[in-house]
């Protein structure tokens, strides 16, 4: 997993352009653009850093709850994952997290296990993408 090292809280960042990545992404760049407009370019780096931290924390919490067979924990942490992924337009991650949430609510062991496996893979990829986005922010 890539972790950005830039001082993201500093003011005066802008997105690197043009994007060198052409392959399909888990993120919606249109939604990110909207969020940048909403939050402001100066605070957007800090926001991305927080999104990264929240997603990574939720992914780790989900893995821990899965290992412990803790359905309430799976439900709580998948809830956080749905919210954050949904807010940044990461619909694939959001949908798997939503399916995990439903399986946890139904205390469906097989259902949660299969979703946790998929979610682990795609949430890691999403965290990588966000880290890349963060590194794409360059000081003016």
């Amino acid at each position: 997993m890539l972790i950005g090292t830039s001082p993201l809280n500093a003011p005066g960042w802008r997105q690197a352009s043009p994007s060198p990545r052409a392959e399909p992404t888990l993120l919606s760049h249109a939604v990110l653009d909207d969020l940048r407009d909403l939050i402001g370019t100066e605070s957007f780096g800090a926001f991305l850093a927080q999104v990264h931290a929240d997603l990574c924390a939720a992914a780790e919490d989900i893995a821990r709850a899965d290992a412990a067979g803790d359905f309430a924990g799976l439900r709580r942490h998948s809830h956080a994952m749905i919210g954050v992924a949904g807010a940044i337009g990461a619909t694939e991650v959001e949908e798997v997290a939503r399916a995990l949430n439903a399986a946890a609510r139904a205390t469906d062991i097989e259902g949660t296990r299969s979703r946790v496996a998929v979610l682990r893979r795609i949430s890691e990829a999403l965290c990588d993408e966000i880290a890349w986005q963060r590194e794409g922010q360059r000081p003016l």
Partner: protein
Amino acid sequence: MAKGRPASTVSAPAAPPVLLVEDTPSLQMVYEAVLRNAGQPVVSAATGGEGLRRFRETGALVVLLDLILPDRDGLDVMAEMLAARPETRVLVITADGSINRAVEAMRAGAHDFLVKPFDETRLVSSVRNALASVGDAPPGARSAELPGGAFQGFIGSSPAMREIYGRITSISRSLATVFISGESGTGKEVCAQAVHDLSNRAEGPFVPLNCGAIPADLLESEVFGHLRGAFTGAIANKIGAAAAADGGTLFLDEVCEMDLNLQTKLLRFLQTSTIQPVGAATPRKVDVRIICATNRDPAEEVRKGRFRADLFYRLHVVPIHLPPLRIRGEDVIEIAEHVLGQLSDEESKSFTGIEDEVKALFRRHPWPGNVRQLINVLRNAVVLNEGPLVTRAMLPLEMLHFDETGGGAMAEPEPAEPTAAVGGLIGRPLAEIERLVIEETIARYGGVPRAARVLDVSPSTLYRKLAAWEQQQG
């Protein structure tokens, strides 16, 4: 969270701050940004305990409350807030798609229910409505039920319908998407209109659109509109139903008839609150509440792959299932007497009531076409007779035949044993039963147009289903 046009100001600067109780920091940042951009002061808390403390300190009258918090259940936090200040408007936010949770929250006094992720317009709109309603009667106090079991176009005082009236009243003030299900003729559009009429959007437009009555290739343009020249035959700009409903309610009837491509576009619309008319270069933001309806089992449609699961979760926030007339007890008589009075006036006849024998028949009839079928039976009786009582002789022959044989074919030809016939259907998938009934009706009535009349659907619906089945068979 999608962002479009600058959010409108939601309150005067002197208003008490909105209290946001959300434990995920990045989401807190987004919601705060939306509200501040809309000119609304906001204070935040990350736990239920902190939320209650800030609630007491700030005197907040509008609270955005996540249901799943690290230390407390959100519903318990809401209960404490409402106990302390009943006039508080609590807007519950959650990513938990549990329908029961939404209903539970609304019943417990939530002012609105927002399912994550929601867009900026939805959040601002919800807060604006909540602020505007502060000072009105507390949640749940308003009831639109009239004496005699009448409620916003519905007639009937059965327990099942009273529960429906209560649910409509409690959800109407919300902006949450409502999903109405029920057999054909149970009053789904009446229900949608009632939700709209009791909402804060009652002054706005109510735009119904029957997705099953419009050919698939025209439906996108009907929903989202088109620009002149966008395609052959587009001779003028057309405003779509979604734009026409801006500031009001869009009612999508027979939503399960929508093809998968358009479902994707509808999902995008729900996610972003933006529409892009066919041929337009840029999207446009609209503020629309969605109500949709189907006479199918939507969960089954999802399982069969005919309805997108993600769209289902978006739409199926607050469900209302309208009961069929046959289980509504004395409602059938209340409705019949009410409708008879109306029809008698309309036709300048002198009907004053219904014979007891007919009432008894009405009570035991299964009414497969529900209230619509009952109205048709009465209209037929009133138009062809003078009154003063509706007698058995005035009823359609197929209804009498059904009654005499103990059931079976509603209309013609061969007598059948309904119990046996239904028995043969039990255990089969709903889609298969639908196909059997449609094909049998077409065969019995000699063609699609007559079958469509009997089944009370448009012929285009039947043609489309037949084409889809042929396609499935290759």
